[in-house]
């Protein structure tokens, strides 16, 4: 009986459609499960190797209460936000241009995907030699990580725009600028937001990596110092902070992404 129900594709399709909204409660349960798993790990490995969730949270509270912390946090926030803005604005502009110009896009795409897949961390000596120690090196690191997905997603979004939209634009005798602003960008928005989401994650990652090598300040610097001294408590506390921040921001962008896509489907 159960098997026959499962085999019924109509019922499953219908149900899947009705439950399009992800069940937040289940995700909460899942996070609870992960925390429980973490606690089990602590029991198995010992508090020295893997501090417990409770110990980590109180350690994090301690770190955040420290008078030095706001300075570090502000440094990381400033660097990653600047890198993010540069990645998004420049990535969008380059992506639009490459998407609109067919040959340029064809020339650039394999080079961009190749750049995307190389371990960019190895470029840090070059970045340091070019920018010196300090915030600009960190920003540069964030940008080289984040800009490529933004370019690639935007380029593909522009390429995949329905030809009939562009023909409508010509029929309405829009200028190139009007076409870009009123047709291409709005039509490509869901794809562009997906690019922003990936770009955001990688920009943050890149900035942190930059801080680990190219800086005396910031959360990345705190991390690498704790790693060098074997201070697992601090490493776990900072890791938790980053995981929570990154997941929250990414989840917010994901929600926006889904809404835009549904909107695009509905219209």
């Amino acid at each position, binding site marked *: 009986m159960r098997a*026959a129900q499962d085999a019924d594709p*109509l019922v499953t399709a219908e149900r899947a459609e*009705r439950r399009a909204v992800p069940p937040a409660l289940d995700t909460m349960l899942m996070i609870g499960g992960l925390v429980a798993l973490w606690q089990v790990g602590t029991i198995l490995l010992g508090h020295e190797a893997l501090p417990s969730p409770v110990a980590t949270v109180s350690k994090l509270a301690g770190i955040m209460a420290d008078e030095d912390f706001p300075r570090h946090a502000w440094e990381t926030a400033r660097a990653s936000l600047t890198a993010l803005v540069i990645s998004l604005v420049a990535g969008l502009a380059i992506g639009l241009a490459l998407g609109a110009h067919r040959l340029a896009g064809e020339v650039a795409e394999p080079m961009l995907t190749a750049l995307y897949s190389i371990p960019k961390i190895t470029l840090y000596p070059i970045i340091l030699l070019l920018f010196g120690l300090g915030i600009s090196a960190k920003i540069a690191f964030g940008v080289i990580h984040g800009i490529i997905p933004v370019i690639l997603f935007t380029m593909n979004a522009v390429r995949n725009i329905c030809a009939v939209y562009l023909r409508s634009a010509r029929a309405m005798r829009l200028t190139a600028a009007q076409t870009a602003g009123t047709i291409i960008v709005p039509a490509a928005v869901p794809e562009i937001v997906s690019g922003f989401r990936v770009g955001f994650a990688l920009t943050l990652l890149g900035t942190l990596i930059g801080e680990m090598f190219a800086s005396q300040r910031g959360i990345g610097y705190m991390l690498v110092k704790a790693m060098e001294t074997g201070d697992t408590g601090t490493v776990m506390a900072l890791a938790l902070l980053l995981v929570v921040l990154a997941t929250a921001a990414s989840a917010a962008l994901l929600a926006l992404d889904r809404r835009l896509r549904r909107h695009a489907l509905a219209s």
Partner: protein
Amino acid sequence: MSAEHLCLTGVTRIYPATEGHAAVHALGPIDLSLKPGEFFSVVGPSGCGKSTLLDVIAGLARQSAGTILFEGKPVTGEVPDGIGVVFQEDASFPWLTVFDNAAFALRRAGVPDAEVRERVRHTLAFTGLSSFAQAYPAQLSGGMRQRLCIARTLVTRPRLLLLDEPFGALDQQTRLLMGDELLKLWRETGATVLLITHSLDEAALLSDRIGVMSARPGVFIDLVETGWARERDSRLAAEAGFGVVTGRLWAALRDQSIKALAMAS
């Protein structure tokens, strides 16, 4: 075996309620019986449950109530032997050649290789695909791909052929020609055919009998006998009787279509 090839009594389909949604009564009750070798079409407004009816008959979905007898044996949520289905969507496998696509079901059923080759060759010739045997579906036009799906079904020698808007994605001229081919196949294989379509012309041209369905929940509100000879093709469209049939179909369907349109918005 009884005189009916396929017999439905009180067949109903209700989608069960899920959290936040009431149950949906999609279909029925439907009573219908098809004689062996009959060509029967179902027309109805969109969303009336035509495709649900086909799924239930094919055993792809389970009826909530009622009985379906195919060759005297009940059908309940599992596909019985002797039924072939062609879907509206392109279901040709892009990773196989035309020949391998057509041979797919026979090979899975363990038919000996020599027989597979013989039957596939025959079916491809029959459906005009012989010269494309080594091509891949992506190299064919939409009409050719749909023809391949029909060939893939025919090669299994189904006694009941269920067609779910198989020509829905094709242009009008191609549709008419594919309809002629379908009639030829129907005559030569002797299979019983049940065709779901939204085209009144198509139903009127091809069928012995046409069932007109109401808006949801779909029930038959009219059964139209065309009275065409078994030897026929799309040139029927020029005859006076053709307009009478489509006129009667539309008369039965118009109010239902208006209702369906209002339901959708």
